[in-house]
């Protein structure tokens, strides 16, 4: 039970302390997220500029206007290898309609990546994430992880794990035409 009356000064002091604590607590909860843009469905995909195999650089923003599949992979990741032929097939089928796949490779040497690309006959662009920053921005943990962006660069779908040809095609058609049924 309150035993004393409180002077205005004491009230002010108490409220000031309590407010500071509350503010810090809120900061603690919300500011401890990674700084910088983070990929989220419904939000614009974080832009990046990475070295591209066989060229200079590729920026994600250059692909605005196309439906983009961002595929995070590595040559030593078995499920990534497994889904590559399916990706290549869908790519060839729809690239003239405005579909682009960007394979984002995690920290491998150019020699290894080029060898793999030639071995499998991949024709879609491959870029290198040498520092892993783009992986962090897209919250990638297991590989393969695929993000699908619409023509405005908004993240629409996220898929973790290897994809079948149907699964890729369905999403691509949805973003290209608004319907998911294969032709």
């Amino acid at each position, binding site marked *: 039970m309150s*035993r*004393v009356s409180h002077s205005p000064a004491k009230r002010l002091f*108490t409220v000031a302390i309590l407010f*500071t604590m509350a503010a*810090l607590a809120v900061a603690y909860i919300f*500011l*401890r997220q990674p700084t910088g843009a983070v990929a989220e469905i419904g939000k614009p995909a974080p832009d990046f500029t990475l070295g591209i195999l066989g060229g200079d650089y590729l920026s994600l923003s250059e692909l605005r206007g196309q439906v983009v599949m961002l595929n995070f992979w590595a040559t*030593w990741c078995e499920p990534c290898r497994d889904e590559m032929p399916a990706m290549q097939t869908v790519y060839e089928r729809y690239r003239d309609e405005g579909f682009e796949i960007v394979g984002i490779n995690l920290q491998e040497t150019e020699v*290894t990546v080029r060898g793999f690309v030639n071995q499998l006959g991949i024709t879609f662009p491959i870029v290198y994430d040498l520092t892993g920053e783009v992986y962090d921005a897209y919250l990638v943990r*297991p590989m393969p992880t695929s993000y699908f962006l619409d023509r405005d660069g908004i993240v629409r779908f996220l898929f973790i794990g290897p994809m079948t040809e149907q699964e890729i095609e369905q999403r691509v058609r949805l973003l290209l035409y608004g319907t998911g049924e294969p032709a």
Partner: protein
Amino acid sequence: MTVHGKVQPNVRPKAQAKAPVSFYDRFWRFFASVRLAIVLIFLIAAAAVLGSLIQQEGAYPSSLPPEIYYPMEYGTYGEIMYKLGFTRMYSSWWFLLLLVLFGVNLIVCSIDRFVPLIKALRNPKVARSRRFIASRQVYTQLRTARPPEEALDLILARFRKEGYKVYRDGVHGYADKGRWGRYGPYITHIGLLLLLVATLGMAVPGWYHDEFFWVAEGETVRVPHTDFVVRNDGFHVEFYDDGRPRLFQTDAVIIDEGEERLAKPIRVNEPLVYKRVNLLQASYEFLLGETSFELLRTVPGQDEPVSLGLLTIDMQNPAPEYIVSDDTKVTVVHYLPDFAMDPNLGPISKSPDPLNPVFILQIEHGDEPAEPAILFLLQPDFALPGLDSPYTFRLAGLEIVARSGLISHKNLALPYIYTGLVITVFGVFLSFYLYHRRVWIRCEDGLIDIGAISNKHAFSLERELHRLVEAVKQDLGAEQPVPLRRQPKAAAAATADS
């Protein structure tokens, strides 16, 4: 009747119009409750226990994201736990809310009790009745022929000499010692609050980071979360006889805005500090650097293969082609750090680590068309059966590159955390080791009543009073008709406002 030397009005103060209870008053009353503190402590403890029993995010052995892992691993329970935030117990909003509420509770309780305590201790009621004094924890009565004023003078002088603060009101005296023992809990609370606020302060951007990074010998790398770089000028490691590392250090140079600012070896437990960032030596590894092979070509008609020159590959950064000599060019078709054969694809790599490095090459020599060759690093002279290749290799040289594992660590809240802990310990020390002794003295009709209480350590109080009373008896030349006795603590509890 006179109680406490004051006339107690037997009538209620003028009827107060029932004042509307302001929000502030309700807020204050709610948070001034010790019961609330107990409830909050229990909830926080329960949450902490649960957090130890439930597998937390970031601590489970899988790279799947939590929203997938928990339902997969634990079924419905897993999904519920995840949705409720039990899987990130210590960073969930409700756990922090509990902590904040507890902090508020602590502040309000402390102010609520501390202010009256200080006031009461500073202005003690000196004059007490004989009945009051006789019902204190420790009581004795002396008899002296001296006049009361003189007796009291001598007694208070004795107490003052023993380090007591003394007060006087006519023939009544009061002495107390060890007030700081009463302040102990409040000091502890202040320490804990400082600790809490400092820990929350770690959320302020720029106050805290902790990140591991690699820097190879000779390499210059940006220190994570900072705007300066560090160069590894050399890595040294020494071993004990049984193979354990005895010492490892990195000769590090900090470069800030293009200029070398600091050069210092970083050893385990001896970090480099620059701009309030600590660089700690955490790990190391040895990697293959430049590896050289003699390129040998079998020539029909000759027993021994001919050496065409040296093929030198930087294993950290293999190039797409190598010029071995004027007329020999090696093209790297594929490099597989951890070679294995896949039934569908052929040669693949099982992992990113160079556990079994294999190079698939095409070699052009002179006017000959490109011919295939395969280099197995672990066995350079191995010729793959079934591959029609005139080329073999012989290991010529090997370079080991050391990579130093450092941690970039910064925590500006640390000094406040330590201060908070020191204050807390100090408060606990005061609470346990100092006890607040209060003695009332009353001289009347040649009889001297001495009664004392303390907030803890009753036995010490008894011994202390015994000693003091013996001294007083000497000073006064008094007799002791009522020997010193210990009684159960008086009902008028030894609280601040008595």
